[in-house]
């Protein structure tokens, strides 16, 4: 250990500890500075956060372990079809900015269930909304906690259990004491850490491959020293190896890609922990632009991700078959692939985690990386002629971002920064989700339904207790993942898209929509979405309880995958709500006046002062 640190270059492990340690002390410092004193500060930071800072915090809140760690890897494998994540997870902000945020800000309360309960003059509607919110947020948070565990175990060399305990402790400190105020300012810091961690390696890699420092330009440029564009080269290299053409392979059918994208968009706009951010800005005017700022900060990562994806694919092929990308040599030549014994250090490191696997199927001691299930007869013939017996290298999609700096042989401090960035992404999202859960329990259930007489102090305490309990539950679920972690994000988006988004939208854009219609719509949308997801993945994701034959096989609804089904659920929600509304009495006069008032910015400060 000491011998290593005496070297000119600091030991990698020490560098990572320093980077992560620095970022954590920053978050704790902010937590102490921004303690919350009132319920208003606790739930909505006193409604006093500048729209640009609020946008930055929303960006960190929104970009989870999935965006930071997994997305580029998914795009790298899917090619063009991966664009559905890029469009879906950003396009929702347009809907949010125009259809929901300003009106919810004018409404001037703290939470989504409160809006639904007041607008539809029904505690029943509020309770349905709380249930949707709790399910969506809790399933979402499990993924964040496991993400924290993975990042800790890979980068800090501790077990993932200890990683989760440390993560729980940190979130507890600043979320429970700081509330929304503490969370918001910590998230601003976390945004800075995660965006540097994401873009710096991308800039280095773009420079190496294309000579352009902006990855967004680099992806559309020629390869260094060649008269061919990076994407055209990638297309020809991957098709030669039997993969689908990078720039045109869709995700299932065009219809599926369409519906999937739409589901992610309305799911994004309906996720309570995102919507809640727009209660924290001072005015309706600020709520409009704050969504724009949030998207600016998100777009920096989201437009970099496709470059990271394509360049990582290129670098991976370049590592395995060195001559192919730069010299254009034949990947099927006998000495083209590298020998396993001569593989680079980063591959050895990632093999230990099990996320990268090599199996020498044809026993030639070299690594063959290609698509062995290809329908491309030319590639198939070439592989057979070269004596290849199947793909020998499996790379987990999650590695792409985390190992990126190692693949490109970047300095140690960049690797340390990426570790801190991954943790920032997971922790900031977990904190935002905990906030939404805490507010739903203490404000929507305890204050508005069960104990209306509770004092402000009592409610604040209840909120903190609810959050502490939620942290323990989330940590426990992270330690004992119930075998459905992979399906959970799809479920969260499905619930938000099929229940919450349509209900809020109808509450604003229809003066006449009544409680019967809204409740029936939410329940129908939710039921149909859960039915389709559970048919594929088992009832509450319990293995063996799936019932695919009942619905006529996998993706039986026009080839739509369960992850993409939220938009269909939303359609059902709208349709059922409309039919039931036609058969039941109109909402009372004062509700219709309330909707009129919500549509007009004037008077927002009056409403804000009311609590």
């Amino acid at each position, binding site marked *: 250990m000491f011998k290593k640190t005496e070297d000119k270059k600091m030991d990698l492990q020490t560098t990572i500890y320093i980077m992560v340690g620095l970022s954590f002390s920053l978050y704790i410092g902010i937590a102490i500075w921004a303690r919350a004193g009132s319920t208003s500060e606790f739930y909505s930071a006193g409604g006093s956060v500048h729209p640009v800072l609020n946008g930055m915090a929303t960006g960190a809140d929104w970009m989870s372990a999935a965006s930071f760690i997994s997305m580029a890897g998914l795009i790298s494998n899917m090619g063009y079809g991966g*664009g559905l994540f*890029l469009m879906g997870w950003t396009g929702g902000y347009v809907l949010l900015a125009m259809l929901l945020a300003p009106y919810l800000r004018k409404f001037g309360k703290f939470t989504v269930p409160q809006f639904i309960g007041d607008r539809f003059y029904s505690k029943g509607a509020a309770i349905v909304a709380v249930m949707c919110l709790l399910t969506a947020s809790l399933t979402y948070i499990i993924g964040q906690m496991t993400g924290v565990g993975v990042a800790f175990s890979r980068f800090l060399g501790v077990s993932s259990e200890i990683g989760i305990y440390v993560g729980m402790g940190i979130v507890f400190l600043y979320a429970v004491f700081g509330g929304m105020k503490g969370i918001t300012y910590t998230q601003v810091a976390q945004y800075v850490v995660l965006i540097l961690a994401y873009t710096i390696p991308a800039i280095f890699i773009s420079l190496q491959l294309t000579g352009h420092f902006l990855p967004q330009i680099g992806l559309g440029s020629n390869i260094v020293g060649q008269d061919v*564009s990076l994407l055209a080269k990638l297309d020809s290299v991957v098709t030669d190896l039997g993969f689908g053409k990078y720039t045109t392979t869709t995700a299932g059918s065009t219809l599926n890609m369409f519906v999937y994208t739409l589901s992610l968009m309305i799911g994004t706009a309906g996720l309570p922990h995102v919507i809640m951010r727009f209660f924290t800005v001072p005015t309706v005017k600020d709520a409009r632009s704050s*969504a724009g700022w949030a998207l600016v900060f998100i777009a920096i990562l989201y437009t970099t991700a*496709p470059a990271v994806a394509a360049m990582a694919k290129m670098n991976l092929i370049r590592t395995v078959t060195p001559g192919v990308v730069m010299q254009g040599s034949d990947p099927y030549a006998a000495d083209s692939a590298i020998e396993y014994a001569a593989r680079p250090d980063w591959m050895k490191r990632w093999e230990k985690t099990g996320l990268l696997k090599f199996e020498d199927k044809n026993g030639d001691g070299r690594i063959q990386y290609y698509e062995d299930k290809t329908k491309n007869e030319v590639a198939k013939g070439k592989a057979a002629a070269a004596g290849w017996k199947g793909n020998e290298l499996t790379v987990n999609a999650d590695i792409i971002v985390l190992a990126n700096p190692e693949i490109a042989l970047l300095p140690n401090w960049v690797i340390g920064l990426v570790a801190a960035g991954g943790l920032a992404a997971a922790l900031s999202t977990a904190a935002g989700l905990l906030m939404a859960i805490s507010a739903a329990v203490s404000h929507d259930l305890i204050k508005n339904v069960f104990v209306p007489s509770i004092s402000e102090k009592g409610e604040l305490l209840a909120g903190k207790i609810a959050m502490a309990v939620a942290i323990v539950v989330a940590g426990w679920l992270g330690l004992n993942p119930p075998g459905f972690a992979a399906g959970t994000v799809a479920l969260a988006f499905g619930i938000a898209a099929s229940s919450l988004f349509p209900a809020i939208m109808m509450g604003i854009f229809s003066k006449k929509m009544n409680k019967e219609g809204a409740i029936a719509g939410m329940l129908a949308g939710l039921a149909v979405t859960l039915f389709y997801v559970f048919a594929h993945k088992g009832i509450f994701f319990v293995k063996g309880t799936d019932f695919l034959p009942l619905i006529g096989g996998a993706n039986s609804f026009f080839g739509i995958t369960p992850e993409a089904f939220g938009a269909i659920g939303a359609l059902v929600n709208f349709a059922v709500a409309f039919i039931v509304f036609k058969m039941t009495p109109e909402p009372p006069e004062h509700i219709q006046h309330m909707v009129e008032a919500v549509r007009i910015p*004037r008077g927002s400060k009056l409403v804000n002062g009311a609590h």
Partner: protein
Amino acid sequence: MKHDYDSGAYWKETLKLLRNVLILWFLVSFGAGILFVDFFNQFHLGGYPLGFWFAQQGSIYFFVGQIFYYAWRMNNLDIKFDVQED
């Protein structure tokens, strides 16, 4: 607390703006990025096939621009109809 603004006309104009922005929102993402991607891929933007660019880059830039355009237009509408915040 009465103001002499015309909330009906204000709302009508708001919906018109929403409709226009949403049409563009649909065209850049679902249109150019998904439904007509093959058509747009005939053209190139630097090394990007254009349809691919819309799906993985362009639509995001448009989204950002749209939100700020919408915010700017709404703020003007607020003033025009005298419903802005005090």
